[in-house]
């Protein structure tokens, strides 16, 4: 039987605020365990939460960019479950009345555009971290240690509709969303560091069937790469179970990055009953329209708008997409264009040699001392004919490696093109003289031989000849 895959995603993003969600501890962690804690975020008896305004602002900003309706009234609720990383044994989240609902995100998968529904955007607090002892993983650990530094970090949860139809779409959705969040500067969206987390609900149904199949929830997806892998593994498992006439059990499964399989929790699993109820220590959030409008005004150019603008600057669609997906590259392009460089040329260099260099050397463009002005300079030198393309690449490589200014590199190396036509003509005459056979072929009508002759000129000048001038002068030397 043919099956259709149905996927919905819950993405959690840590928000870039100065303080935590409900207390004034700094929103940072990775320091010594339990140093970034206070009575409130460790759930001491008697403490009360007070909502961080900036977190609400960032979530509203996101909601607006996702075309959601910001709800006139939203309410925090308590979600109960006992776990040592949750000091109160409850998480303050939003339930019946979230901050925003009903939006969508457009994604493009292999050239096909799809609108993915956004069910809701809401705010909650993060849990702490557990360090398991005695074995690497929770399953075998004899005991665990709890660090509350991360507890109370503002989290924004973005829930999609079950609109995704393949693991690949799920991966593209998450990357598109993460990129949007980076553009909005609401989170740094690093999956490997846990500032963006993704839980996936997946089910299969016979093609053509309207009713959803039984779903499982896949957790522990710790990188963008892992999303597709985890869901492919779970999709395959569902398909095997179903095609053998078996039934899927609704459960939470953990993805193992090494074996690339998912496993269910061992041991008794208590049925979840979160016993949500309105958080009595907090009052409703009813964002005034003027505030929402102010927040809306802070939304800058969004990735898809930027792509359209790049295409308008004659950057090829695919190149524009690649650049927009990597915000620092796109920012680089804008800066270089502002300095007079031509967008398509900048795009080529960025996507080509510069990206290749960064990948090879495992470096970020921002970490190199190569500001947009340097690329603009390089491109001007090419345009003026001072540098050949080939030499320019060498100059670029040196600049990326040493961090020295382009001008300095060019001056020191004497790698500028030979612009003295008298000198070039002499070399052309030399080439003609020492390649009589090819000259004969050319004169016999084999025009392609010209390429060989130009190559010889380049060889003789160590690439410093302008190819156009070389061709012209060779023709002159040939009579």
């Amino acid at each position, binding site marked *: 039987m043919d099956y259709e895959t149905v996927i919905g995603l819950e993405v959690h993003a840590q928000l870039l605020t100065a303080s935590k969600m409900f207390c004034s501890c700094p929103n940072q962690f990775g320091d010594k365990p339990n140093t970034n804690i206070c009575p409130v975020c460790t759930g001491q*008896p008697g403490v*009360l*939460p007070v909502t961080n305004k900036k977190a609400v602002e960032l979530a509203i900003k996101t909601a607006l960019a996702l075309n959601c309706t910001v709800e006139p009234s939203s309410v925090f609720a308590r979600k*109960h479950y*006992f776990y040592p990383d949750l*000091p109160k044994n409850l998480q303050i989240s939003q339930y019946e009345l979230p901050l925003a609902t009903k939006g969508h995100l457009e994604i493009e998968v292999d050239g096909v555009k799809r609108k993915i529904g956004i069910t809701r955007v809401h705010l909650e607090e993060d849990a702490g971290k557990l360090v398991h002892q005695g074995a690497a993983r929770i399953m075998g650990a004899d005991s665990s240690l709890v660090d509350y530094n991360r507890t109370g970090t503002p989290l924004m949860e973005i829930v999609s509709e079950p609109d995704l139809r393949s693991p690949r779409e799920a991966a593209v959705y998450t990357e598109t969303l993460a990129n949007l969040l980076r553009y909005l500067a609401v989170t740094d969206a690093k999956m490997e560091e846990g500032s963006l987390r993704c839980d996936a609900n997946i089910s299969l149904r016979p093609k053509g069937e309207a009713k959803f199949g039984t779903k499982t929830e896949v957790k522990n997806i710790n990188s963008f790469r892992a999303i597709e892998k985890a869901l492919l593994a779970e999709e395959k498992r569902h398909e095997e179970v179903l095609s053998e006439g078996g039934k899927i059990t609704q459960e939470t499964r953990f993805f193992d990055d090494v074996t690339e399989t998912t496993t269910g929790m061992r041991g008794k699993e208590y049925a979840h009953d979160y*016993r949500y109820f309105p958080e*009595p*220590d907090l009052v409703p959030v009813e964002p005034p329209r003027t505030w929402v409008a102010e927040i809306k005004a802070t939304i800058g150019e969004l990735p898809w708008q930027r792509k359209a603008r790049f295409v308008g600057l004659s950057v090829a669609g695919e190149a524009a997409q690649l650049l927009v997906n990597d915000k620092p590259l796109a920012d680089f392009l804008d800066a270089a264009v502002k300095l007079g460089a031509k967008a398509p040329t900048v795009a080529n260099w960025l996507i080509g040699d510069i990206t290749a260099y960064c990948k090879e050397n495992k470096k970020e463009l921002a970490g190199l001392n190569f500001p947009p002005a340097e690329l603009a300079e390089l491109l001007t030198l090419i345009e003026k004919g001072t540098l050949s393309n080939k030499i320019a690449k060498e100059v670029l490589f040196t600049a990326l490696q040493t961090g020295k200014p382009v001008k300095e590199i060019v001056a020191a190396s004497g790698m500028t093109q030979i612009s003295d036509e008298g000198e070039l003509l002499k070399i052309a005459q030399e080439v003609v003289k020492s390649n009589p056979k090819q000259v004969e072929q050319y004169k016999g009508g084999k025009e392609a031989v010209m390429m060989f002759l130009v190559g010889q000129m380049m060889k003789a000048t160590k690439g410093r000849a302008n190819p156009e001038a070389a061709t012209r002068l060779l023709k002159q030397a040939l009579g």
Partner: protein
Amino acid sequence: MHTKTAHELHELLVNKKISSVELTTALYDRIAGTDDKIKGYVTLTRDEALKQAQAADERLTTGANPTPLTGIPIAIKDNFCTRGIKTTCSSKMLENYLPPYDATVVTKLKEAGAVILGKTNMDEFAMGSSCENSAFFPTRNPWNRECVPGGSSGGSAAVVAARSAVMATGSDTGGSIRQPAAFCGVVGLKPTYGRVSRYGLVAFASSLDQIGPLTKDVTDTALMLNVIAGHDDRDATSIEHPVPDYRSALKNDVKKVRVGLIRELLGSGIEPTVKAAVKGAADQLAALGAEIVEVSLPSFEHAIATYYLIAPAEASSNLARYDGVKFGHRSQEHRDLISMYYNTRREGFGAEVKRRIMLGTYALSAGYYDAFYLKALKVRTLIKRDFDQAFERCDLLASPTTPTVAFKLGAKSADPVAMYLSDIATIPVNLAGLPALSLPCGNSSGLPIGLQLIGPAFAEELILRVAYTYEQNTAWHQTSAVI
């Protein structure tokens, strides 16, 4: 010295007739002489108190802005967090808990210069009406030690009545200030919800809890309210409403004030002597110029059921944090995390707390939320509407604070429903978030009777004025227990 009120002692302190160190020492002497019998305190903080008294004396001498509470020895209910001083909530769970911070109210009282004598006994986690639910020992009623002092602020009410503290703090979720005030013959005020910051009050039922004073007379209540009222950035439910000088509200004048007697609280469930005392108080107010009318609040009959769904639900949530991981008791018996949770909570909580956790967990659980918790929130609206309508006709409402005078120890401990029903007059007030005060208005077989005055939100001034007028024209506040 120990028999005097705070405002009387303030005169003596500023006129250098006594020092705060002398006063504090005198109160510890009084405690030594009475507390074995009353058992009002769970922790005494003598060293700290004497330092505070010394600082207060300096402040009084140098004239560095002394307040009416500077140098006044007070007691703090043991569910207020006090930095570095045990805060047990009279529970085994928190037997050795040392809070890392002070409750906002404690900070305010300290800043005002009050001297903290110690922490008072209570029903465990403020759940109870008799102080018998303390994990340590029951507190006894100073008027009759066979009887309970009421609860949950039973320790605070008893030490004020025993004159072993000048005044005390309490917390009131369903009557926990007013009911023990009535049973012990002192004044107790539950302010409007949001009037006083709850930050640092160990939560029982967050939407109902409110902090207030227990004092010897109405003037002292106004003085403490002056210190503790006001908005707090740390409590999102504390209200930014101006804080008047409550003492200047104390005028001997009730002319034209319309006081509504609540019909439902003068019916068959109320002890005749209590009924008679409250009617007598109403007559007295009428004689002083108030207009007395009778009002009906029909939804009152549902208040107890409503309360015993909402309060346990919130409590079951608030008490989830006591799990042996971060603070408090941890069971030594465990083979894994979940057995540690079970055993810690089995050993750490007493029967009433467990009962309410069970009830509240049930009311919130899947399949029962709508029928119980949500239903209770809707009935809460009906009760609130009844009050709103009554306040269209009256300025204040009056009722007995309790249906009976203090009962004997053990009389109701086997029957939780009977115990719950004794809060019939106080519970509706918490559900509606209103201010209410209990003050002595009579005596039955040597036990005090309390009159409850209920006002609309933020009507503390009017409540205090009417209470003050009644007090000035009667002598109940001048009688005290003999120990």
